[in-house]
């Protein structure tokens, strides 16, 4: 053992207490483990690179005078292979590609594939992150409630209230303003009424109707797990396809729909983690200190349950990117003038024998990005879970 190591051992303990285990911050340990896992590390590197490409793609291809214009049509220059020089005699000054060559070639309308790929990178990135963000938020919320409040029963009046409010909201959206408004009003009055009862009249009321309303039905845990079961019954890609096809085409709809159909896994992970965390001493201590329930959940328990959520989120981004590409490929993606990797490939497939770069460039781009996210996610699983860690 060298001298510096000894110093590290004695740091901030005071020498008289003797050596302790070397202090290593969690981040440093994480970094060290990540460096050892070569696949995961290259995944992270590609992920960071993709992040920068997507951001610069957004900056460079948007605005009124973008640096790389993905929308310029040059019919005289169509289907040029990658790295070919533009024919300057045929082009107006503003049609000349910024780099002086067609780095990735041109498509059947003579649009620069490089500029289109840049524009598409941003779509893939945002769809992946926003969809997974929605899924993780719903998953943490549902899983948190189910894991922490799971034993609490749902009462008859809760079900009635949820029914009334959702019916009122539905009617309001559907156009029946009067009936919907009345139902919403009844719902909010009942909420106020029960708040008032809880706060000012502690004594148990003995009325028959109220007792019927307060009858326990099922536990919250059962309710949420049944909702998860219901969601798992739908064939996911088919459901997404149906909804996206019925709604007006836009990037936001796709993100929301993918997010709303992929939260079930996160819910189950968070619930399982919270069920075991709930029995631990630090939660009891926090309760004894009078910390509120929501603060215990979000400040004390969720951070301890984050590991599986992070892993499933990383892999979820990969699958969201794949789903978006698949939707674009089928023609249900982001509407046409905007390029996505899926619709570049889908447009290019007709020329697969004459212009294979139109298929291979976006295809390999999707493959590499998805692979990077999957590898990084799997590596994260190994690193964050001490049980799976190799002994060294």
């Amino acid at each position: 053992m060298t001298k510096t190591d000894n110093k590290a051992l004695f740091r901030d303990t005071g020498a008289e207490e003797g050596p302790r285990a070397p202090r290593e911050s969690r981040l440093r340990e994480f970094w060290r483990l990540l460096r050892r896992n070569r696949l995961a590390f290259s995944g992270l590197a590609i992920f960071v690179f993709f992040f920068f490409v997507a951001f610069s793609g957004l900056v460079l291809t948007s605005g009124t005078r973008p640096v790389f214009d993905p929308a310029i049509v040059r019919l005289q220059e169509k289907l040029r292979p990658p790295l070919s020089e533009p024919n300057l005699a045929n082009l107006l000054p503003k049609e000349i590609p910024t780099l002086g060559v067609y780095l990735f070639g041109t498509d059947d309308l003579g649009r620069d594939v490089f500029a289109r790929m840049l524009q598409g990178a941003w779509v893939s990135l945002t769809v992946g992150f926003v969809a997974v963000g929605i899924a993780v938020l719903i998953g943490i919320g549902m899983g948190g409630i189910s894991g922490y409040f799971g034993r609490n029963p749902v009462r008859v009046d809760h079900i009635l209230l949820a029914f009334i409010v959702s019916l009122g909201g539905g009617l309001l959206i559907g156009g029946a303003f009067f009936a919907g408004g009345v139902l919403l009003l009844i719902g909010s009055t009942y909420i106020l009424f029960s708040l008032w009862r809880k706060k000012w009249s502690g004594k148990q009321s003995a009325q028959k109707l109220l007792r019927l309303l307060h009858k326990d039905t099922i536990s919250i845990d059962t309710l949420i797990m049944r909702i998860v079961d219901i969601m798992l019954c739908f064939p996911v890609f088919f459901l997404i396809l149906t909804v996206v096809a019925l709604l007006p085409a836009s990037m936001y709809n796709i993100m929301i729909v993918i997010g709303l159909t992929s939260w079930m896994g996160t819910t189950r992970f968070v619930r399982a983690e919270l069920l075991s965390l709930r029995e631990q001493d630090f939660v009891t201590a926090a309760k004894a200190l009078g910390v509120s329930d929501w603060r215990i959940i979000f400040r004390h328990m969720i951070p301890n349950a984050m590991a599986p959520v992070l892993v499933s989120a990383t892999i979820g981004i990969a699958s969201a990117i794949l789903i978006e590409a698949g939707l674009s490929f089928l023609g249900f993606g982001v509407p046409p003038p905007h390029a996505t990797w899926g619709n570049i490939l889908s447009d290019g497939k007709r020329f697969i024998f004459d212009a294979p770069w139109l298929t291979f460039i976006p295809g390999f781009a999707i493959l590499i990005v998805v692979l990077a996210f999957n590898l990084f996610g799997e590596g994260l699983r190994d690193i964050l879970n001490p049980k799976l860690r190799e002994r060294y």
Partner: protein
Amino acid sequence: MLSFIGRSIIQKIITLFFVMVISFLIIHLAPGEPSQVDPLNPKFTPEMVERFRKAFHLDEPLHVQFVYFYRDLFTGKTISWKDNEPVLKKIGERFLNSLPLFIVATILIWTLAFPIGVRSAIVRGGAYDRLATFFSYLLYSIPGFFFAYILILLIVNAFHVPVIGMKTFGLTDVSLLRTGMDRVWHLVLPSVLEATVGIAVLSRYVRSQMLEVEGQDYVRTARAKGLPPEQVHYKHALRNALLPFVTMFGLMLPGLIGGSVIIESIFSWPGIGRMAYEAILSRDYPIILSINFISAVLVLIGTFISDILYMVVDPRIRL
């Protein structure tokens, strides 16, 4: 056991009811109406739209439509809005087309994933294991449509065989062998593509199960008492690692109807997935809802069967 079966059947029926309601609401609350699919078509006069709405109960309130629809579905009278064919008959025909794909893909998955997974668990950390790991990630990450085009390019350039569709059009008056080979060539690519993700996922799962069992004490005991490694791996470890896969027979069931939309569209394969895609394009609600309903039923039956199987094969599980 009996009470578990009873409870889970009731639970599944309730789940199914909610699935029915939700899918019906999703379809019918979406903007636009099926009677307005083609507003520019001059043959579509307002009277015709009215008659259409009446014939398919579209002028009734939603809950009445719901009852009508599922009554028709259960009595087998639902008809497609596009061509007035009975929905169940159409789904049945398409199902028979998707079935060969499903069977070949399943055989591929199960025969490839197990040897790969078991082998890479036995030689864990070695070159074979790392290669298998990387390839399973690669197969899992590759977009199906892109992989389809790579394979089409390779096969068509190397063997000069047609691959799109179920069979070559106009191939008559040739020997049985020719037509048979033709069908096989058309079957190979789509079923390989449907199997790719399955092979990747299942082989990883087999590997992790096998690793878990190999780490247990009784395997160490078997090794310590001097049994040959083959016997330890394949007799002691593998048998116990196989337990969770018994349940997969149940979970395979929904795959019967969930033919891949993308793969079947690329290969113009007239299966369930392609029919679903066409139904979505033409807003043929009865078909969309029926496919949704049938696949939900299959998912529920599948999980039920897998629960039961798990209880049968693993005496430690008592529900």
